[in-house]
């Protein structure tokens, strides 16, 4: 059954409004909240961590914005820059889309990784940007794996903010393998006894949700985020049309026991801090200390 034409055009309009919320703020002083329709003063919105003060709709953040509100000022050091996508399948139009999103975001890929401090606690931090729909291709998977491997080497906790539509279709089967690759990396982290915290942000679906995003020791989600396995379009292709209204939201996942907490943006940093402190006894001291004590033991 196809929807009536007027219905479709309204859907398009709604998508347009939603997209305006996703991309950078439109020029001008005011933004209309896609959640409640309230007109918000842009400066006020930024000060409020891009959360609507009326309905607490959480706007999507760029990687840069996420780092700014999560890491202590000036502590984020990006690593693994210079990993860039090639077109392994010779997939049509792939390069042009990559070039377009590179220009739009100023990033090489959606996943940005580095080391940072959260309230003075060192972490290996991964954040995501809306680059190619936040999709996970070879570069994305490689960066997640390298971040985790660095954490294992340096005995650091890992914190990853996820935002992804799933595996990157343009890299086909190689994208699917990134699910296995990142899940295997998380296993290494577990073996080393290091904490792994995942924060699901809008949206986290499909290939990313079904791999490293669901394997956190602690899993938090921002309110109202779309979180789930099969997107509406994939499910519709599989013949599944009827889905409940709150389906695949953070709150749905909380209710079904799949995440630890829904945490608002304002409380995210303090929540992360508390959890990091809980884990800190299991964290083995930094390598310098271990080497130092070894020498001391040798000397003795």
């Amino acid at each position: 059954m196809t929807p009536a034409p007027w219905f479709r055009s309204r859907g398009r309009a709604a998508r347009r409004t939603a997209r305006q919320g996703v991309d950078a703020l439109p020029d001008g002083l005011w933004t209309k909240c896609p959640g409640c329709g309230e007109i918000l003063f842009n400066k006020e919105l930024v000060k409020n961590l891009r959360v609507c003060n009326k309905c607490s709709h959480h706007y999507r953040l760029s990687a840069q914005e996420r780092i700014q509100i999560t890491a202590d000022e000036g502590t984020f050091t990006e690593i693994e820059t210079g990993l860039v996508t090639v077109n392994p399948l010779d997939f049509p139009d792939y390069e042009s889309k990559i070039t377009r999103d590179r220009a739009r975001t100023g990033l090489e890929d959606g996943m940005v990784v580095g080391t940072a401090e959260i309230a003075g606690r060192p972490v290996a931090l991964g954040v995501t940007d809306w680059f190619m729909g936040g999709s996970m291709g070879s570069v994305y998977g490689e960066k997640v794996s390298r971040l985790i491997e660095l954490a294992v080497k340096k005995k650091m906790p890992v914190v990853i903010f996820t935002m992804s539509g799933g595996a990157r279709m343009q890299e086909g089967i190689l994208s699917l393998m990134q699910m296995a690759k990142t899940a295997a990396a998380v296993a290494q982290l577990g073996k080393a006894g290091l904490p792994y915290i995942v924060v699901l942000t809008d949206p986290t679906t499909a290939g990313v949700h079904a791999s490293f995003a669901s394997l956190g020791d602690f899993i938090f989600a921002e309110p109202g985020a779309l979180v789930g396995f099969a997107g509406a379009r994939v499910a519709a292709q599989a013949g599944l049309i009827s889905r409940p209204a709150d389906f695949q939201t953070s709150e749905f996942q909380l209710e079904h026991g799949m995440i630890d907490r829904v945490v608002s943006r304002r409380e995210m940093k303090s929540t992360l801090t508390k959890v990091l402190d809980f884990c800190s006894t299991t964290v083995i001291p930094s390598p310098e200390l271990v080497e130092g004590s070894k020498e001391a033991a040798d000397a003795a």
Partner: protein
Amino acid sequence: MPPSNWNVLDFEKPIAELDNQIAEIKRLTQEQGQDRSADIAALECDRDRVIEEVFSNLVPWDRVLLARHPKRPYTLDYARVIFDDYVELHGDRLFADDHAMVGGVATLDERQVMFVGQQKGRDLKDRQYRSFGMAKPEGYRKALRMMKLAEKFKRPVICFVDTPAADCSVDGEGRGISEAIARNMMEMSALETPIVAVVVGEGGSGGAIGIAVADRVLMLENSIYSVIPPESCSAILWRDPSRFKEMAAALRITSSDALALGVVDEVIEEPLGGAHRNVEAAARAVKSAILRHLGELEKLSPRKLLDARYKKFRAMGVFEDLSKKRKAEVVEQ
């Protein structure tokens, strides 16, 4: 082959026609007692030539149709030939028994093995019973439970992959289909026993990789391995579901593609005309490949085995690392 035109793909029609002729002559031979073996031999020769010709010109979409062929042998069809003393085990001990995921203890020649795999149904009722081979969270947890048993008793695990996708129902979501698949991959990457996975039909996305993090991943010639069904991908990416044939080619989902991309270790050749034309032979080929790989894997120490498995998946993906180039440029300046 039964002389039937049911379940015949378009490109198989000339083959089916010759099959029917051969069957007809054989029937007449029986009824009238004439010896027409020369005619039969000639026709069979013709038919094999036609098959070879048809199969040398298959496009990727044709492979999709073969992988989903209604007559294609399913997991238990292979298991019947490959294993002896198969004792099926049920349930995930948490919620339910998923009929789309089967498995149990079995003997593979003189070895004791654990066998796990997705199972599709043959007729309408059976298909519903097997949920079209789309396993739910409890299916993946059942599979993991059995693999953990294999680890405990130091037996190798053999996985058969044949699923269009994992279940995407509302109930499945509520019980954590994502978590179940993610956990399987994580646990399999560290499972201290050899694992061999064989993609025998459809290697559908997360549903497939959820039981395919193995030391060796093998693939039958006419099976497919894809991140998304070509129809869905075409609908989503090109907003045009009718271009699925083109998409099947673009996604590189055939066995030779998977081999070239380093995703599978070996492609197992199928009998002439596809596995469904000679299930016995196809299963024997699968068996000998499994035995060969298991033999190699059993020589490794557990530590070496796990290291190699981690490295295998760690190396997957294609990208360019400009950082070294950039460093070199800085040095030059």
